[in-house]
Each structure stands twice: as C-alpha cells, then as structure tokens.
C-alpha cells in the first residue's frame, strides 16, 4: 500500500456539558474516543454507525474545524495540529467538506455563484476569475450557471442544493473530500443521482474520499474500505466485501443484518439488536457495545478491547477473536 494521504492517530474529542451561571462543567460527552485509521490516495473510506456515534464530530476533527483533545491528524505528510494559520489555510485548499443538511449548509443571503466563488476569493483569486471558475464547476455538477448562478438557495430543491455544496467543495480542487452524510436528506431517486455524480467526479479528479453515512446501502455502493463506529470508537475496519460477507464484531453483524434487503431468504424475523445506543455522556466501561451484545463476557466490562488483526486489512475490536 502506498503512503497514506490521510492518517489519523488516537483522535479524541470530549465535549463539556456546562450549565449554570458560572458555566461549570459537570459532565463530558465522549463524542470521539481514541480513533485511528488511514486513507490511501484515491481510496474511499466509508464510515458507518448509528446517529450520535461521533461520525460528524470525526469529520470536523479531520478538517480541524474542531480542535481535538488528543491525537494527531497527518495530511499529505504534514501534522495538521501543529500547522500554523497560513499553512493551515493552504492545506485547506486540499481538503474539503460536503455537509449533510442542504438547508443549513448554504448562506440564504448569498447567490449560488457567490457561494461557490467565495472560497476562491478567500484564497486570493480575482472576482471575475473566481466567478468563471465557479460557473465551470456548477456546470460540471449539473447546474446550468446561467439559469441558477444568480439564484438564492431557497429557490433550489434539496438535490440541487447538495450539488451546489459539492461544487463549493470542488472549486478549490481538493485532494481529499470528506462527505458528512451527503445524501441522507434527499429522496431515494435524487440520492442515486448525487451518488453517481460523486462517483464520476471521484474518478475524474482522482479524489480521495471519507464518506460518512448511516446508510449501509450507500456505504456499500461507494466505499472500498469501511470503518464501523460505535459510540465514538472504532469497532471494526475492513474491505467492504469482507465486512458484508463475514462481519466479525457483533455490532457489525447486527448492523449488516438489520439493513433492509430485497432477498427474502436473508430477511429476519426479529431485529438483531434493539433499543438505542447508550448515552455517550456516560458510556459503559470497557467495550461500549457490551450492554447490547449477546456475547458479552465479564472481561468486556474491564477494558476496551484492542484492535485485533484478522487479515492484513481487517481489524476488529472484540475479545471474541483473541
């Protein structure tokens, strides 16, 4: 495997819960806890997990929109945490984020072309040139700039807005694209269009992607490798085929088993796991999945299971495999 484009080591982010007049901290949300992975150039890593498992926080940590409490992010061989302001600004051209909510992710007071051109202007491109480039990218994502360029976000449909979001991320010609649930807010048919557009763009521009989603079908469609998160921790990583065919971690098994299927022979009588994930404010000790796990053993409560390599590209954090 070639040198990774993005490497994340021991990333951790805990959010304090403050209240009262003195803003005293009385609890911590452990959103991301000791997450490590790497992404090779032109690879797509899928990140999957239930809502509230820290996927979006992870996306923001990778791009240093949030400061991590611990851990390192290495991008293009450079440590992002120690990068100075000017250096970080330069690096940000190469890594962009596509957001989930097509409503909140576009400024309601900015026209589409201005929204796309804004990042270029920030990096010192002249207004005319920035607009010309914005038009080219808008055209590429399937929005006629002469028709939509001067429109405001509320005049566009959800799918069109997500195309604008993608155009805004691509206009800087990044190497890494982090996509935070880019299709969850869209209708199924529009989802397919946007996913196909993303696949085309990825091939065309040799993009490396971190694709975050709770939807396994989407993850299976786009990813080469998959990382499964549960309550802020990585429980299993592997190629999408390995995980789909023989998931090892009980949580991954449950996740793949609960995905709706068209194949009657694979349908289940009862859902494999029930209930909501525990509160990340006070997660269970040891393995965080043990409260919902059928195989839970006494030692699961003692310490967090370390990742165990089952194959060169398949790791699972579960005592069942030790």
């Amino acid at each position, binding site marked *: 495997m070639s040198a990774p484009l993005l490497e994340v080591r021991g990333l951790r982010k805990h959010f304090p819960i403050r209240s009262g007049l003195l803003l005293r901290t009385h609890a911590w949300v452990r959103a991301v806890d000791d997450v490590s992975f790497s992404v090779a150039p032109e690879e797509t890593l899928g990140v999957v997990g239930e809502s509230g498992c820290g996927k979006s926080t992870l996306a923001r940590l990778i791009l240093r929109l949030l400061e991590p409490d611990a851990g390192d992010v290495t991008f293009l061989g450079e440590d992002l945490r120690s990068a100075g302001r000017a250096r970080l600004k330069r690096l940000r051209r190469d890594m962009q984020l596509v957001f989930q909510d097509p409503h909140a992710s576009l400024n309601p*007071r900015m026209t589409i072309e201005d929204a796309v051109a804004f990042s270029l202007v*920030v*990096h010192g491109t002249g207004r005319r040139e920035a607009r010309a480039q914005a038009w080219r990218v808008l055209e590429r994502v399937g929005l006629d700039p002469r028709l939509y360029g001067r429109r405001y976000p509320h005049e566009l449909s959800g799918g069109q807005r997500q195309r604008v979001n993608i155009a*805004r991320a691509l206009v800087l010609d990044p190497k890494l694209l982090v996509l935070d649930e880019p299709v969850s807010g869209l209708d199924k048919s529009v989802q397919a269009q946007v996913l196909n557009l993303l696949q085309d763009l990825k091939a065309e521009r040799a993009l490396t992607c971190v694709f975050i989603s709770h939807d396994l079908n989407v993850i299976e469609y786009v990813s080469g490798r998959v990382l499964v998160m549960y309550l802020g921790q990585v429980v299993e990583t592997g190629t999408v085929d390995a995980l789909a065919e023989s998931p090892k971690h009980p949580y991954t098994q449950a996740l793949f088993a609960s995905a709706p299927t068209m194949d009657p022979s694979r349908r289940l009588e009862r859902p494999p796991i029930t209930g909501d994930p525990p509160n990340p404010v006070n997660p269970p000790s040891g393995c965080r999945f043990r409260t919902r796990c059928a195989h839970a053993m006494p030692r699961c409560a003692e310490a967090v299971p370390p990742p165990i390599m089952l194959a060169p590209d398949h790791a699972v954090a579960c005592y069942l495999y030790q």
Partner: protein
Amino acid sequence: MAHPLAPSIATGEVETVVGAPMSYWRTVAWRLRQDPTTIAAGSLLLLIALAAILSPLIAPHDPSAGSIRLRLAPLGTSSHPLGTDEQGRDMLTRLLWGGRMTLLAGLTPVLVGFVLGTVMGVFAGFVGGLTNTIIMRTMDVFYAFPAVLLAIAISGSLGPGLWNTLISLSVVFVPRVVRVAESATVQVKSLEFVAAARASGSGVWPIMRHHLLPNVLGPVLVFSSTQVSLSIILAAGLSFLGLGVTPPAAEWGLMLNTLRGSIYVNAWVPALPGVAIFLTSMSFNLLSDGLRDAMEIRG
C-alpha cells in the same frame, strides 16, 4: 404586475432574463411596493417627516408667539385652522415644530440602540463563553426594569432636557437590540455554511462580512423598526411628565401636558397632539410589519 422571479419570455430578452432573478434587497423593495398598507403608512410617515423637517418654511406663524386675546380658539378659526393653545399660540405651527422634536427624540434612541446593540450583540454572540455571559447578564439587569420605569428613573436623575431624554431612551433600547442581535448571531454561527467558510480557509472578517452580518442584520433591523413607535411614545411620555423637552419648545407630549387643563374648555384642541402621536407611532408599526413580511425568505 408579473412576479419578478417568473421568466419573462415575452420581453424578447430570453437569453438574459429567463431565470435571472433579482437580488434580495430588490425583491424586498418589490414586495413592499405590493403591499397597500405599507404604502399608506409609508406615505403618511413621509408626509409627517417632511412637514416636520420643513416646519420653519411652511409653518404659518411663530411657534412661540402667543396672543392673550386669542387663547384656545376652536378648530376652524380664520388664520388658525387648527385653533390655538392655552397661550394663544397657533396649533398648526406648534404641531409642525413639535413633530421635529418628537421624531428626533423617537428615532435617535432606536438608531443608537441599533448601532450599539448590534455591535455588542454580535460581539457577544461571536466570541461566546465568559464574555458572552458578562455582556448578556449585564443587559439583563437593564432588561429587568419596565421600559417606562427605566426611562423615568434615568431621566429623573439626569434632569429634564432633550439630551437627557435621548440618553435615557438609548439606555432603554440598547439592551433590547443586544438580545436580538446576540441570539441571531449564536444561531447563524452554528449553521453549516459558517463551518463551510471556515473549512475553505476563510478568516474571521470575511465570515463576519459575508456570512454572519447579512443574516443577523435583517432580524435586528426588523426588531428595531418595531421599537420606533414605542420610543416615540416614551419620548412624548417623558415630556408629558416634565422630564423631557422643556417649555417653551414645542413637543407633542409636552403639548398634551400643557393643554390637559383645557380639556373641558375646548376638547378638540388638546386632542390634536395625541392624534399626531397616535398616527405617527401606528404608521411606524404598520411599516415595520410590512418590512418583516417583505424580508421573510420564502422557499
């Protein structure tokens, strides 16, 4: 009139016109022009403001020249169409001159509140944390008092006069605007397009200028416009109580006060300043309602 966002193929300028909507502020202006209530209120206010500004030119008499023989003349008296007050001064002249004072005392505090309140509110909302707590809790102290009571207390301790009225009313309006500006800033700051701007490497100022302020100023502007009518009534109220503008200056609230004793002699003349206050503050209210509707972003 066709909606501006509709394609106007009939004009022949298909290439440029189709799907090229107008800018946000032009849309707002267009909507305002479509609303008869707003047109009426705006026209009335324009008339009142023009009359007040031009009062030295158009007023038929000297505002402080009275006549002992012609006191409390009824409406329709020749050469005094709106009658005279208890010192025989021409009511029309005094209402025109009084409008200057009342509008000045009504608009200035809101303007001061808008500017200072927006700066403080956006700062508090943007910085957050302890700074936010200190600023906002300080504002809450002022907010805890009813507006009238606060204005009277400050005016009372500063003494009467136009400047003191302006200061005391500004103190009333700044905290209100700060609250609106702060909550709008906190809300907008957490939206994803601000994060997107940060992710593209933008610094604080471009984010403020292009992303934060355009979205915060709208609600603050609408809120401030609703406060103008209140400010006019408070300014007139302070004068009525003798805490505002001092005689012999003409001011609607002060005129109400001095004419109050004459209400049983000639009920119509003392009612005039009240009618003027009512019409002005109602027009401002209707205008701000229209502005709020026009500035709404409709999907």
